[in-house]
Protein backbone atom coordinates (compact mmCIF):
# COMPACT_ATOMS: atom_id res chain seq x y z
CA UNK A 1 0.00 0.00 0.00
CA UNK A 2 1.50 3.36 -0.99
CA UNK A 3 1.89 5.80 1.87
CA UNK A 4 -0.99 8.23 2.03
CA UNK A 5 -0.71 11.89 2.97
CA UNK A 6 -2.37 12.92 6.25
CA UNK A 7 -5.16 14.45 4.25
CA UNK A 8 -5.82 11.27 2.31
CA UNK A 9 -5.77 9.21 5.49
CA UNK A 10 -8.30 11.48 7.12
CA UNK A 11 -10.53 11.42 4.04
CA UNK A 12 -10.40 7.63 3.98
CA UNK A 13 -11.21 7.44 7.71
CA UNK A 14 -14.20 9.74 7.18
CA UNK A 15 -15.38 7.56 4.28
CA UNK A 16 -15.28 4.47 6.48
CA UNK A 17 -17.25 6.17 9.22
CA UNK A 18 -19.81 7.62 6.83
CA UNK A 19 -20.28 4.25 5.14
CA UNK A 20 -20.73 2.55 8.49
CA UNK A 21 -23.28 5.21 9.38
CA UNK A 22 -25.21 4.61 6.14
CA UNK A 23 -26.42 1.16 7.07
CA UNK A 24 -24.76 -0.41 4.04
CA UNK A 25 -22.38 -2.28 6.22
CA UNK A 26 -21.71 -6.00 6.09
CA UNK A 27 -19.30 -8.51 7.57
CA UNK A 28 -16.84 -8.02 4.72
CA UNK A 29 -16.80 -4.28 5.42
CA UNK A 30 -15.98 -4.93 9.07
CA UNK A 31 -13.06 -7.11 8.05
CA UNK A 32 -11.85 -4.59 5.51
CA UNK A 33 -12.04 -1.75 8.04
CA UNK A 34 -10.18 -3.78 10.66
CA UNK A 35 -7.45 -4.52 8.15
CA UNK A 36 -7.17 -0.85 7.22
CA UNK A 37 -6.96 0.21 10.87
CA UNK A 38 -4.34 -2.43 11.64
CA UNK A 39 -2.21 -1.51 8.62
CA UNK A 40 -0.92 1.75 10.08
CA UNK A 41 -1.33 3.43 13.45
CA UNK A 42 -1.84 6.71 11.63
CA UNK A 43 -4.98 5.24 10.12
CA UNK A 44 -6.24 4.26 13.54
CA UNK A 45 -5.62 7.62 15.22
CA UNK A 46 -7.26 9.51 12.36
CA UNK A 47 -10.27 7.18 12.61
CA UNK A 48 -10.52 7.56 16.39
CA UNK A 49 -10.32 11.32 16.14
CA UNK A 50 -13.19 11.64 13.67
CA UNK A 51 -15.25 9.05 15.48
CA UNK A 52 -14.87 10.91 18.78
CA UNK A 53 -15.86 14.31 17.42
CA UNK A 54 -18.76 12.81 15.48
CA UNK A 55 -19.97 11.21 18.71
CA UNK A 56 -19.83 14.70 20.24
CA UNK A 57 -22.10 16.06 17.57
CA UNK A 58 -25.10 14.18 18.93
CA UNK A 59 -25.24 16.96 21.48
CA UNK A 60 -26.56 19.10 18.67
CA UNK A 61 -29.83 17.63 19.88
CA UNK A 62 -29.55 19.70 23.01
CA UNK A 63 -29.08 22.77 20.84
CA UNK A 64 -32.08 21.77 18.77
CA UNK A 65 -34.31 21.48 21.80
CA UNK A 66 -35.77 24.95 21.38
CA UNK A 67 -36.10 24.76 17.60
CA UNK A 68 -39.37 23.35 16.33
CA UNK A 69 -39.07 23.84 12.59
CA UNK A 70 -37.95 21.06 10.22
CA UNK A 71 -34.32 21.42 9.14
CA UNK A 72 -31.58 23.39 10.86
CA UNK A 73 -32.05 26.89 12.28
CA UNK A 74 -30.39 29.78 10.44
CA UNK A 75 -26.72 30.46 11.08
CA UNK A 76 -25.95 32.46 14.20
CA UNK A 77 -29.21 31.30 15.79
CA UNK A 78 -27.53 30.20 19.03
CA UNK A 79 -25.59 33.41 19.36
CA UNK A 80 -28.75 35.45 19.32
CA UNK A 81 -30.63 36.45 22.43
CA UNK A 82 -33.72 34.32 23.16
CA UNK A 83 -36.08 37.06 22.02
CA UNK A 84 -34.33 37.24 18.64
CA UNK A 85 -34.47 33.46 18.43
CA UNK A 86 -38.23 33.56 18.68
CA UNK A 87 -38.34 36.11 15.87
CA UNK A 88 -36.08 33.92 13.74
CA UNK A 89 -38.27 30.93 14.40
CA UNK A 90 -41.39 32.81 13.33
CA UNK A 91 -39.58 34.00 10.24
CA UNK A 92 -38.65 30.43 9.33
CA UNK A 93 -42.22 29.25 9.85
CA UNK A 94 -43.53 31.83 7.41
CA UNK A 95 -43.79 30.28 3.95
CA UNK A 96 -41.45 31.74 1.35
CA UNK A 97 -43.29 34.17 -0.90
CA UNK A 98 -43.23 33.02 -4.48
CA UNK A 99 -42.65 35.76 -6.98
CA UNK A 100 -45.29 35.85 -9.68
CA UNK A 101 -46.30 38.21 -12.39
CA UNK A 102 -50.03 38.72 -12.95
CA UNK A 103 -51.20 38.07 -16.49
CA UNK A 104 -53.37 40.85 -17.86
CA UNK A 105 -57.04 40.02 -17.32
CA UNK A 106 -60.29 41.95 -17.24
CA UNK A 107 -60.92 43.86 -14.05
CA UNK A 108 -64.16 41.93 -13.25
CA UNK A 109 -62.49 38.57 -13.67
CA UNK A 110 -59.73 39.61 -11.36
CA UNK A 111 -62.17 40.91 -8.77
CA UNK A 112 -64.16 37.63 -8.72
CA UNK A 113 -60.99 35.61 -8.43
CA UNK A 114 -59.76 37.80 -5.63
CA UNK A 115 -63.00 37.47 -3.66
CA UNK A 116 -63.09 33.70 -4.13
CA UNK A 117 -59.46 33.45 -3.07
CA UNK A 118 -60.04 35.62 -0.02
CA UNK A 119 -62.98 33.43 1.01
CA UNK A 120 -60.96 30.25 0.65
CA UNK A 121 -58.05 31.77 2.52
CA UNK A 122 -60.28 32.89 5.38
CA UNK A 123 -61.78 29.41 5.70
CA UNK A 124 -58.42 27.70 5.52
CA UNK A 125 -56.91 30.17 7.93
CA UNK A 126 -59.58 29.82 10.58
CA UNK A 127 -59.42 26.03 10.30
CA UNK A 128 -55.65 25.84 10.46
CA UNK A 129 -55.47 28.51 13.14
CA UNK A 130 -57.69 26.38 15.36
CA UNK A 131 -55.44 23.41 14.77
CA UNK A 132 -52.33 25.45 15.05
CA UNK A 133 -53.24 27.11 18.29
CA UNK A 134 -54.95 24.14 19.90
CA UNK A 135 -53.55 23.68 23.38
CA UNK A 136 -54.34 20.89 25.83
CA UNK A 137 -54.25 22.16 29.37
CA UNK A 138 -54.42 19.95 32.43
CA UNK A 139 -53.54 20.08 36.10
CA UNK A 140 -52.58 17.01 38.09
CA UNK A 141 -52.20 16.72 41.86
CA UNK A 142 -51.19 14.05 44.34
CA UNK A 143 -52.27 14.00 47.98
CA UNK A 144 -49.82 13.54 50.83
CA UNK A 145 -48.78 9.89 50.88
CA UNK A 146 -49.78 9.32 47.27
CA UNK A 147 -47.35 8.44 44.48
CA UNK A 148 -48.93 8.13 41.07
CA UNK A 149 -47.84 7.72 37.48
CA UNK A 150 -49.84 9.94 35.19
CA UNK A 151 -49.89 9.50 31.40
CA UNK A 152 -49.87 12.80 29.53
CA UNK A 153 -51.65 13.26 26.20
CA UNK A 154 -48.38 13.32 24.25
CA UNK A 155 -47.44 9.85 25.51
CA UNK A 156 -45.03 11.06 28.18
CA UNK A 157 -45.27 9.69 31.69
CA UNK A 158 -45.13 11.79 34.83
CA UNK A 159 -44.51 9.95 38.07
CA UNK A 160 -45.56 12.32 40.80
CA UNK A 161 -44.27 12.15 44.35
CA UNK A 162 -46.40 12.84 47.39
CA UNK A 163 -48.00 16.28 47.66
CA UNK A 164 -47.07 17.45 44.16
CA UNK A 165 -48.80 19.49 41.52
CA UNK A 166 -48.01 19.99 37.84
CA UNK A 167 -49.72 22.20 35.27
CA UNK A 168 -49.37 20.81 31.76
CA UNK A 169 -49.81 22.72 28.50
CA UNK A 170 -49.39 20.72 25.32
CA UNK A 171 -49.30 22.94 22.25
CA UNK A 172 -48.32 22.24 18.67
CA UNK A 173 -44.78 23.47 18.94
CA UNK A 174 -44.11 23.22 22.61
CA UNK A 175 -44.80 21.05 25.62
CA UNK A 176 -44.71 23.10 28.81
CA UNK A 177 -44.99 21.76 32.29
CA UNK A 178 -44.92 23.92 35.35
CA UNK A 179 -43.97 22.18 38.57
CA UNK A 180 -45.95 24.08 41.17
CA UNK A 181 -44.79 21.99 44.13
CA UNK A 182 -43.25 18.66 45.01
CA UNK A 183 -41.30 16.35 42.76
CA UNK A 184 -42.01 14.53 39.51
CA UNK A 185 -40.09 12.10 37.33
CA UNK A 186 -40.68 12.66 33.63
CA UNK A 187 -40.26 9.93 31.03
CA UNK A 188 -40.54 12.10 27.95
CA UNK A 189 -42.00 10.78 24.71
CA UNK A 190 -39.60 11.59 21.93
CA UNK A 191 -40.72 14.44 19.69
CA UNK A 192 -37.93 16.68 18.35
CA UNK A 193 -40.53 19.04 16.88
CA UNK A 194 -41.97 19.74 20.31
CA UNK A 195 -39.44 20.30 23.05
CA UNK A 196 -40.55 19.29 26.51
CA UNK A 197 -39.78 21.94 29.11
CA UNK A 198 -40.34 21.86 32.85
CA UNK A 199 -40.41 25.30 34.42
CA UNK A 200 -39.72 26.10 38.05
CA UNK A 201 -39.36 29.69 39.19
CA UNK A 202 -38.02 30.95 35.87
CA UNK A 203 -35.66 28.00 35.37
CA UNK A 204 -36.48 25.67 32.54
CA UNK A 205 -35.29 22.08 32.09
CA UNK A 206 -35.61 21.32 28.38
CA UNK A 207 -35.56 17.76 27.05
CA UNK A 208 -36.02 16.14 23.68
CA UNK A 209 -36.63 12.52 24.67
CA UNK A 210 -35.30 11.47 27.99
CA UNK A 211 -35.94 10.58 31.63
CA UNK A 212 -35.39 13.10 34.37
CA UNK A 213 -36.89 14.36 37.58
CA UNK A 214 -37.52 17.86 38.83
CA UNK A 215 -38.07 18.67 42.47
CA UNK A 216 -39.04 21.91 44.07
CA UNK A 217 -38.50 23.06 47.66
CA UNK A 218 -39.88 26.56 47.75
CA UNK A 219 -37.43 28.40 45.43
CA UNK A 220 -34.80 25.68 45.40
CA UNK A 221 -34.75 23.26 42.55
CA UNK A 222 -33.20 19.88 41.91
CA UNK A 223 -32.94 18.19 38.52
CA UNK A 224 -31.81 14.56 38.27
CA UNK A 225 -31.15 13.13 34.80
CA UNK A 226 -31.16 9.35 34.44
CA UNK A 227 -31.35 9.01 30.66
CA UNK A 228 -30.54 11.22 27.68
CA UNK A 229 -29.67 14.88 28.08
CA UNK A 230 -31.48 17.83 29.56
CA UNK A 231 -30.68 21.49 29.06
CA UNK A 232 -31.24 23.73 32.05
CA UNK A 233 -31.96 27.35 31.12
CA UNK A 234 -31.67 29.94 33.85
CA UNK A 235 -34.20 32.74 33.99
CA UNK A 236 -33.14 35.72 31.94
CA UNK A 237 -32.73 39.00 33.64
CA UNK A 238 -33.05 42.30 31.80
CA UNK A 239 -30.66 42.78 28.93
CA UNK A 240 -28.80 39.56 29.59
CA UNK A 241 -29.08 36.28 27.81
CA UNK A 242 -29.66 33.34 30.08
CA UNK A 243 -26.81 30.89 30.67
CA UNK A 244 -27.64 27.27 29.99
CA UNK A 245 -26.14 24.11 31.44
CA UNK A 246 -26.15 20.81 29.67
CA UNK A 247 -26.95 17.88 31.92
CA UNK A 248 -26.03 14.42 30.61
CA UNK A 249 -27.38 11.26 32.26
CA UNK A 250 -26.05 10.90 35.80
CA UNK A 251 -26.10 14.65 36.47
CA UNK A 252 -27.71 16.28 39.42
CA UNK A 253 -28.23 20.01 39.20
CA UNK A 254 -29.06 21.97 42.32
CA UNK A 255 -30.33 25.51 42.12
CA UNK A 256 -30.14 27.54 45.29
CA UNK A 257 -30.32 31.31 45.63
CA UNK A 258 -29.92 31.82 41.91
CA UNK A 259 -26.76 29.76 41.49
CA UNK A 260 -26.51 26.41 39.80
CA UNK A 261 -24.38 23.56 41.08
CA UNK A 262 -23.94 20.60 38.76
CA UNK A 263 -22.65 17.27 40.05
CA UNK A 264 -22.06 14.25 37.88
CA UNK A 265 -22.38 10.94 39.64
CA UNK A 266 -22.62 7.28 38.74
CA UNK A 267 -25.92 6.55 37.05
CA UNK A 268 -26.86 4.01 39.73
CA UNK A 269 -26.29 6.65 42.39
CA UNK A 270 -28.42 9.20 40.54
CA UNK A 271 -31.19 6.64 40.16
CA UNK A 272 -31.18 6.08 43.92
CA UNK A 273 -32.36 9.64 44.32
CA UNK A 274 -35.54 8.58 42.58
CA UNK A 275 -36.19 5.43 44.62
CA UNK A 276 -39.26 7.06 46.18
CA UNK A 277 -41.08 5.96 43.05
CA UNK A 278 -40.88 2.37 44.25
CA UNK A 279 -41.80 3.32 47.80
CA UNK A 280 -38.31 3.80 49.21
CA UNK A 281 -36.42 6.67 50.73
CA UNK A 282 -32.67 6.12 50.57
CA UNK A 283 -30.33 7.96 52.93
CA UNK A 284 -26.59 7.84 53.00
CA UNK A 285 -24.88 9.62 55.87
CA UNK A 286 -27.80 12.02 55.92
CA UNK A 287 -28.45 14.42 58.83
CA UNK A 288 -31.57 13.24 60.64
CA UNK A 289 -33.29 16.59 60.13
CA UNK A 290 -33.07 16.13 56.35
CA UNK A 291 -34.31 12.56 56.59
CA UNK A 292 -37.22 13.68 58.73
CA UNK A 293 -38.07 16.45 56.27
CA UNK A 294 -38.11 13.80 53.55
CA UNK A 295 -40.48 11.56 55.53
CA UNK A 296 -42.73 14.54 56.20
CA UNK A 297 -43.21 15.08 52.48
CA UNK A 298 -44.95 11.73 52.34
CA UNK A 299 -46.96 11.57 55.56
CA UNK A 300 -49.72 13.63 57.09
CA UNK A 301 -48.58 12.62 60.56
CA UNK A 302 -45.45 14.73 60.85
CA UNK A 303 -42.19 13.99 62.61
CA UNK A 304 -40.75 16.84 64.64
CA UNK A 305 -37.24 17.16 66.02
CA UNK A 306 -37.08 18.66 69.48
CA UNK A 307 -33.36 19.38 69.91
CA UNK A 308 -30.18 20.00 67.94
CA UNK A 309 -28.45 16.83 69.14
CA UNK A 310 -31.08 14.74 67.42
CA UNK A 311 -31.12 16.97 64.36
CA UNK A 312 -27.45 16.36 63.67
CA UNK A 313 -27.41 12.59 64.03
CA UNK A 314 -26.40 11.04 60.74
CA UNK A 315 -28.27 8.07 59.43
CA UNK A 316 -28.15 5.75 56.43
CA UNK A 317 -30.29 3.02 54.91
CA UNK A 318 -33.38 2.38 52.86
CA UNK A 319 -36.83 2.93 54.38
CA UNK A 320 -40.38 2.55 53.14
CA UNK A 321 -41.81 6.04 53.19
CA UNK A 322 -45.23 4.64 54.08
CA UNK A 323 -43.86 2.94 57.16
CA UNK A 324 -43.05 5.83 59.44
CA UNK A 325 -43.45 3.62 62.55
CA UNK A 326 -40.67 1.25 61.48
CA UNK A 327 -38.40 4.23 60.87
CA UNK A 328 -39.11 5.65 64.33
CA UNK A 329 -38.61 2.24 66.00
CA UNK A 330 -35.27 1.81 64.25
CA UNK A 331 -34.20 5.27 65.40
CA UNK A 332 -35.06 4.42 68.98
CA UNK A 333 -33.23 1.11 68.77
CA UNK A 334 -30.08 2.42 67.15
CA UNK A 335 -29.67 5.97 68.44
CA UNK A 336 -30.05 7.81 71.74
CA UNK A 337 -33.48 8.99 70.65
CA UNK A 338 -36.85 8.83 72.35
CA UNK A 339 -40.10 9.24 70.43
CA UNK A 340 -43.40 10.38 71.86
CA UNK A 341 -46.71 11.12 70.18
CA UNK A 342 -48.36 14.50 70.80
CA UNK A 343 -51.45 15.76 69.07
CA UNK A 344 -50.94 14.00 65.78
CA UNK A 345 -47.18 14.46 65.55
CA UNK A 346 -44.24 12.34 66.63
CA UNK A 347 -41.63 14.26 68.59
CA UNK A 348 -38.05 13.03 68.59
CA UNK A 349 -35.77 14.15 71.41
CA UNK A 350 -32.46 12.95 72.77
CA UNK A 351 -32.41 10.47 75.57
Amino acid at each position, binding site marked *: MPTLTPNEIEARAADWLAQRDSGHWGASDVTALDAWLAADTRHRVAFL*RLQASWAQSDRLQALGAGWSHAGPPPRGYWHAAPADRRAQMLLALRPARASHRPTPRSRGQRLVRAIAMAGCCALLLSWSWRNYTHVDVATYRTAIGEVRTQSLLDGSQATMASNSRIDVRLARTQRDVSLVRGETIFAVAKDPQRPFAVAVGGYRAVAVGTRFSVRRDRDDLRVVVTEGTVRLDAPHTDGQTSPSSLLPAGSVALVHDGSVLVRSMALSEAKQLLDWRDGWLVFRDTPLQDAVAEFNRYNTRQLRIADADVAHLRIGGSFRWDNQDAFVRLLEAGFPVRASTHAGEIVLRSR
Partner: protein
Amino acid sequence: MHQAPLDHWFVTQILTHEAALLRYLHRHWPHPDEVLDLRQEVYARVYEAAAKATLTQPKAFLFTSARHLMTDRLRRSKVVSIEPMGDFDPSHVLVEEVSPERWCGGRQSLKWLAAAFDQLPDRCREVVWLRRVEELSQKEVAKRLGISEKTVEKHIAKGMRLLADALSAGDPVRPPTASIAGAADAHPYAE
Protein backbone atom coordinates in the same frame (compact mmCIF):
# COMPACT_ATOMS: atom_id res chain seq x y z
CA MET B 1 -3.64 -2.50 27.01
CA HIS B 2 -6.38 -4.06 24.90
CA GLN B 3 -7.72 -2.31 21.86
CA ALA B 4 -11.00 -0.93 23.21
CA PRO B 5 -9.67 0.51 26.52
CA LEU B 6 -6.64 1.82 24.66
CA ASP B 7 -8.88 3.57 22.13
CA HIS B 8 -10.95 5.02 24.95
CA TRP B 9 -7.84 6.18 26.78
CA PHE B 10 -6.58 7.80 23.62
CA VAL B 11 -9.82 9.67 23.02
CA THR B 12 -10.25 10.92 26.58
CA GLN B 13 -6.63 11.53 27.61
CA ILE B 14 -4.93 12.57 24.36
CA LEU B 15 -7.44 13.88 21.84
CA THR B 16 -8.89 16.24 24.41
CA HIS B 17 -5.67 18.27 24.22
CA GLU B 18 -5.84 18.77 20.48
CA ALA B 19 -6.42 22.53 20.56
CA ALA B 20 -3.41 23.02 22.85
CA LEU B 21 -1.29 20.64 20.77
CA LEU B 22 -2.11 22.54 17.58
CA ARG B 23 -1.22 25.86 19.22
CA TYR B 24 2.06 24.36 20.39
CA LEU B 25 2.92 22.99 16.95
CA HIS B 26 1.97 26.22 15.20
CA ARG B 27 4.05 28.26 17.60
CA HIS B 28 7.19 26.20 17.06
CA TRP B 29 7.03 24.86 13.54
CA PRO B 30 7.66 27.37 10.77
CA HIS B 31 5.70 25.52 8.07
CA PRO B 32 1.98 25.67 8.85
CA ASP B 33 1.15 23.26 6.03
CA GLU B 34 3.10 20.54 7.79
CA VAL B 35 1.31 20.84 11.10
CA LEU B 36 -1.39 18.34 10.15
CA ASP B 37 1.26 15.83 9.28
CA LEU B 38 3.04 16.46 12.60
CA ARG B 39 -0.17 16.09 14.53
CA GLN B 40 -0.93 12.74 12.95
CA GLU B 41 2.60 11.52 13.51
CA VAL B 42 2.56 12.59 17.18
CA TYR B 43 -0.76 10.85 17.72
CA ALA B 44 0.55 7.67 16.12
CA ARG B 45 3.70 7.73 18.27
CA VAL B 46 1.74 8.29 21.48
CA TYR B 47 -0.75 5.57 20.60
CA GLU B 48 2.01 3.06 19.89
CA ALA B 49 3.85 3.94 23.08
CA ALA B 50 0.66 3.53 25.10
CA ALA B 51 0.07 0.12 23.54
CA LYS B 52 3.38 -1.02 25.00
CA ALA B 53 3.35 0.59 28.42
CA THR B 54 0.96 2.46 30.68
CA LEU B 55 1.55 6.19 30.50
CA THR B 56 0.86 7.89 33.78
CA GLN B 57 1.05 11.45 32.51
CA PRO B 58 -0.60 11.41 29.12
CA LYS B 59 -0.60 15.16 28.57
CA ALA B 60 3.06 15.61 29.43
CA PHE B 61 3.91 12.63 27.25
CA LEU B 62 1.95 14.06 24.33
CA PHE B 63 3.84 17.36 24.38
CA THR B 64 7.20 15.71 24.93
CA SER B 65 6.52 13.48 21.93
CA ALA B 66 5.66 16.54 19.88
CA ARG B 67 8.94 18.18 20.86
CA HIS B 68 10.96 15.06 20.03
CA LEU B 69 9.27 14.76 16.68
CA MET B 70 10.11 18.35 15.76
CA THR B 71 13.71 17.86 16.84
CA ASP B 72 13.98 14.68 14.77
CA ARG B 73 12.57 16.37 11.70
CA LEU B 74 14.93 19.32 12.08
CA ARG B 75 17.93 17.02 12.28
CA ARG B 76 16.88 15.06 9.25
CA SER B 77 16.19 18.06 7.07
CA LYS B 78 19.14 19.10 4.96
CA VAL B 79 18.13 22.72 4.83
CA VAL B 80 18.70 24.62 8.00
CA SER B 81 15.82 26.89 8.72
CA ILE B 82 16.76 30.45 9.44
CA GLU B 83 13.42 31.26 10.98
CA PRO B 84 13.38 31.66 14.71
CA MET B 85 12.18 28.42 16.17
CA GLY B 86 11.88 29.43 19.77
CA ASP B 87 12.18 27.01 22.59
CA PHE B 88 10.52 23.64 22.19
CA ASP B 89 10.20 23.24 25.89
CA PRO B 90 6.55 22.42 26.42
CA SER B 91 6.57 23.24 30.12
CA HIS B 92 4.79 26.53 29.61
CA VAL B 93 2.04 24.73 27.78
CA LEU B 94 1.59 22.40 30.69
CA VAL B 95 0.99 25.13 33.22
CA GLU B 96 -1.39 26.88 30.89
CA GLU B 97 -4.74 25.44 31.82
CA VAL B 98 -6.24 23.86 28.78
CA SER B 99 -9.55 22.44 29.74
CA PRO B 100 -10.70 19.28 27.98
CA GLU B 101 -14.18 20.53 28.75
CA ARG B 102 -15.30 20.84 25.17
CA TRP B 103 -15.08 17.09 24.77
CA CYS B 104 -16.38 16.14 28.15
CA GLY B 105 -19.49 18.28 28.41
CA GLY B 106 -20.31 21.52 30.09
CA ARG B 107 -21.92 24.68 28.90
CA GLN B 108 -18.88 25.91 27.02
CA SER B 109 -18.80 22.87 24.77
CA LEU B 110 -22.30 23.54 23.50
CA LYS B 111 -21.22 26.97 22.33
CA TRP B 112 -18.23 25.43 20.58
CA LEU B 113 -20.43 22.89 18.95
CA ALA B 114 -22.89 25.56 17.79
CA ALA B 115 -20.04 27.61 16.31
CA ALA B 116 -18.51 24.54 14.63
CA PHE B 117 -21.86 23.50 13.22
CA ASP B 118 -22.53 26.97 11.86
CA GLN B 119 -19.28 26.84 9.89
CA LEU B 120 -20.40 23.89 7.78
CA PRO B 121 -21.41 24.59 4.17
CA ASP B 122 -25.20 24.84 3.63
CA ARG B 123 -26.01 21.40 2.26
CA CYS B 124 -23.59 19.66 4.58
CA ARG B 125 -25.07 21.53 7.55
CA GLU B 126 -28.55 20.47 6.55
CA VAL B 127 -27.55 16.82 6.14
CA VAL B 128 -25.76 16.71 9.49
CA TRP B 129 -28.76 18.29 11.19
CA LEU B 130 -31.25 15.82 9.74
CA ARG B 131 -29.01 12.87 10.55
CA ARG B 132 -27.96 13.91 14.07
CA VAL B 133 -30.84 15.96 15.44
CA GLU B 134 -33.90 14.70 13.61
CA GLU B 135 -32.25 11.28 13.60
CA LEU B 136 -33.24 10.35 10.09
CA SER B 137 -31.25 7.52 8.51
CA GLN B 138 -28.99 8.44 5.60
CA LYS B 139 -31.61 6.91 3.32
CA GLU B 140 -34.37 9.09 4.75
CA VAL B 141 -32.17 12.17 4.53
CA ALA B 142 -31.62 11.41 0.84
CA LYS B 143 -35.36 11.11 0.27
CA ARG B 144 -36.15 14.31 2.19
CA LEU B 145 -33.61 16.38 0.28
CA GLY B 146 -34.11 14.67 -3.05
CA ILE B 147 -30.46 13.70 -3.44
CA SER B 148 -28.75 10.33 -3.80
CA GLU B 149 -27.71 8.25 -0.79
CA LYS B 150 -24.14 8.38 -2.03
CA THR B 151 -24.24 12.18 -1.90
CA VAL B 152 -25.61 12.08 1.65
CA GLU B 153 -22.76 9.76 2.64
CA LYS B 154 -20.27 12.19 1.12
CA HIS B 155 -21.78 15.11 3.03
CA ILE B 156 -21.61 13.10 6.26
CA ALA B 157 -17.93 12.30 5.67
CA LYS B 158 -17.22 15.95 4.92
CA GLY B 159 -19.21 17.07 7.96
CA MET B 160 -17.24 14.73 10.19
CA ARG B 161 -13.93 16.20 9.06
CA LEU B 162 -15.06 19.81 9.25
CA LEU B 163 -16.62 19.38 12.69
CA ALA B 164 -13.48 17.69 14.01
CA ASP B 165 -11.35 20.55 12.70
CA ALA B 166 -13.68 23.25 13.96
CA LEU B 167 -13.92 21.68 17.41
CA SER B 168 -10.14 21.70 17.77
CA ALA B 169 -9.49 25.02 16.08
CA GLY B 170 -9.07 26.76 19.42
CA ASP B 171 -11.34 29.53 20.55
CA PRO B 172 -14.64 29.63 18.77
CA VAL B 173 -15.82 32.66 16.88
CA ARG B 174 -16.82 35.12 19.52
CA PRO B 175 -20.53 35.76 19.49
CA PRO B 176 -21.54 39.36 18.75
CA THR B 177 -23.24 39.65 22.12
CA ALA B 178 -20.55 39.38 24.76
CA SER B 179 -23.02 39.17 27.59
CA ILE B 180 -23.40 35.40 27.18
CA ALA B 181 -20.01 34.71 28.70
CA GLY B 182 -20.50 37.27 31.43
CA ALA B 183 -23.84 35.90 32.52
CA ALA B 184 -22.60 32.32 32.45
CA ASP B 185 -19.66 33.13 34.70
CA ALA B 186 -21.98 34.35 37.41
CA HIS B 187 -22.91 30.76 38.13
CA PRO B 188 -20.51 28.60 40.09
CA TYR B 189 -20.14 25.08 38.84
CA ALA B 190 -18.55 22.07 40.45
CA GLU B 191 -17.70 18.71 39.02
